[in-house]
């Protein structure tokens, strides 16, 4: 595997191992993720993409049997340090989950919740502005602006996922983790979300898990290929999709592993 040392990585993971009880789900992963870049994680189902993604904002802490070793640094700070409060970390590293999970509250409250608990708005007008901006970015504003007070769970699956994206970006994170954000979306919404991801790249570091090669190719600059818990290959997206080093990567992108 080619060494991909960067100048100034946003996230750097060294020798990360993850165990679910006896199941060794992530095996010695080393990766550096650049700021203001979209990084795609690809690989067959069950290879540990979600697991590794959840290490980056310590969502794995909520799973009792899950154990993480190794070192993950964000902005050169070890996020698994005993002094780090995962709550503060998650405000900085936002997440969109594989399955849309809006709160059973109004659309407005869904988006406003994060800014509220982090004290990002001084008054109602500012909060309104944050909500509108987030919904616009998530390409949901036009559909939602007339029904901000109706329940978020009353939206269609794709709309719910965009609501979750709006909710994640409303808290102004620096890193955005997206676990298959488009798996429930139609091609038009997918295109909108991809556009959004491209836009987010201006200010954030975005990590996206996807099963769609085309999507990875379209939106990402870097791609990491996982297989059976190993990080097989990590390189520029163009390189991965045109001239991969590892035969496993080659066979996966050409549809032979999966």
């Amino acid at each position, binding site marked *: 595997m080619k060494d991909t040392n960067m100048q100034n990585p946003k996230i750097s993971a060294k020798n990360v191992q993850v165990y679910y009880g006896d199941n060794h789900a992530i095996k010695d992963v080393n990766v550096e993720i650049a700021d203001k870049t979209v990084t795609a994680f690809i690989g067959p189902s069950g290879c540990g993409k979600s697991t590794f993604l959840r290490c980056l*904002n310590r969502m794995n802490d909520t799973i009792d049997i899950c154990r993480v070793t190794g070192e993950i640094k964000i902005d050169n700070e070890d996020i698994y340090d005993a002094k780090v409060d995962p709550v503060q970390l*998650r405000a900085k590293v936002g997440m969109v989950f594989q399955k849309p999970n809006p709160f059973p509250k109004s659309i407005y409250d869904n988006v406003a*919740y994060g800014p509220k608990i982090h004290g990002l708005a001084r008054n109602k007008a500012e909060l309104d502005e944050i909500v509108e901006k987030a919904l616009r970015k998530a390409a949901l504003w036009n559909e939602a602006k007339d029904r901000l007070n109706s329940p978020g769970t009353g939206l269609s699956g794709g709309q719910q996922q965009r609501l979750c994206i709006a909710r994640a970006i409303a808290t102004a994170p620096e890193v955005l983790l997206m676990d298959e954000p488009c798996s429930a979306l139609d091609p038009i919404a997918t295109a909108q979300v991809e556009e959004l991801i491209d836009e987010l790249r201006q200010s954030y570091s975005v990590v996206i898990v996807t099963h769609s090669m085309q999507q990875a190719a379209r939106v990402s600059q870097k791609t990491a290929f996982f297989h059976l818990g190993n990080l097989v290959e990590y390189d520029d997206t163009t390189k991965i999709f045109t001239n991969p080093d590892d035969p496993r990567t080659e066979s996966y992108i050409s549809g032979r592993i999966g």
Partner: protein
Amino acid sequence: MTHKSLLVADARTKKRNAAERRFKAYGLTAIVVAILALIMLLVSVFGTGASSFRQTYATVTVPLPEDKLDKSGVRDIDVMKKVTTIGYTKLLNEGFENVVIASGIPTELSRKDIGGMLSKEAAATIRDHILANSELVGTEATLDLLMNGRIDGYFKGRVTMESAALDSNTSPEELALAQALKDAGIVHTKFNWAFLTNPDASDQRPEAAGLGVAILGSLYMMIVVLVTSLPIAVAASIYLEEFAPKNRWTDLIEVNISNLAAVPSIVYGILGLAIFINFLELNQSSPLVGGLVLSLMTLPRIIIPARAALKSVPPSIRDAALGVGASKMQSVFHHVLPLAAPGILTGVIIGLGQALGETAPLLLIGMVAFVREYPAAYTPDAGLFGEASTALPVQVYNWTQRADPGFVERASGAIITLLIFLLVMNAVAIFLRRKFERRW
């Protein structure tokens, strides 16, 4: 395999459909049996108990001579209190006889027998009335006074001429006179507020027995149960479900809670006797002790459904909250608890309902005591919860032990009151649940 025509059901399909029909029939039978049992219960309870909400009174004008009632002549209450109910009974007998004579109804009964048609409680009623209104002395007072239980029973169909002939407490002549007085409008039946406000009465006067103390006792106990067990149970279930590490200790606690919910309630009575009365030396028979004992009993019965309600909230909601940087506590209180609230509430109401109807542990802590007077605890200036009281189910138990058939009616009336209590509690629960329930 080639499929046959879809228009003809094959053997397997027929068998499956038959099994389904049988199952539906079993279910329907079970429901019909349950409904029939409920109807039988309600008919028997309301059949015997509904009449306790009506009571027979006589309008009597009682002479109040000063020389008998107030030797001091200056309405000195302490002097007037020296006249006992026996003194008032004489005046009452005289007054009632006068009423009968004035009505022109012929009767061979003596003055004592005529007076005996009134309740033994009547003398106390008039005495209290005069002591409260001493200016009436020297004039006369017209009051609605309780008839005795036999006369009341006659108008309710419990006592007949035949049974009266065998009964030393009444006679057919008395019943005939009562009937004539009723036709003349002197005796009448009206709604029995006293049943809901009076304290209990002694064996000889079922007509005066009421549920006042029992209702207050039950009410106060429910307040104690709600105030102690609801916060403890909710806090315990949130802690166990959301925060506690999963290890051997929490497993042990979990098993114990399940076991405690199944412990017979009388055991909690023994526990309460040992802890609250013998060790902490709280007042025996008090609603405070009763409430605490019922709280102990109710706690596990609320914790179990509360945990189930918390568990049924999808984990994705917790992830969503944690994902935007909410703390564990914020995710629980902002998102999980509101979603679990309807379920928790249902558990609370069922627990409270069981506590309301519970008799056995209360017997052990002495709440079966005969409470003739309103405890001082129920007057506003005394400390609440401290004094001897009784409770609705205990009152039912108590009355079913009494000899006078008038108490059978009272016991059923108390059951009706208990059922109404439960109904009100359930209605409140349904209302609150509707209010909290959200769409997913």
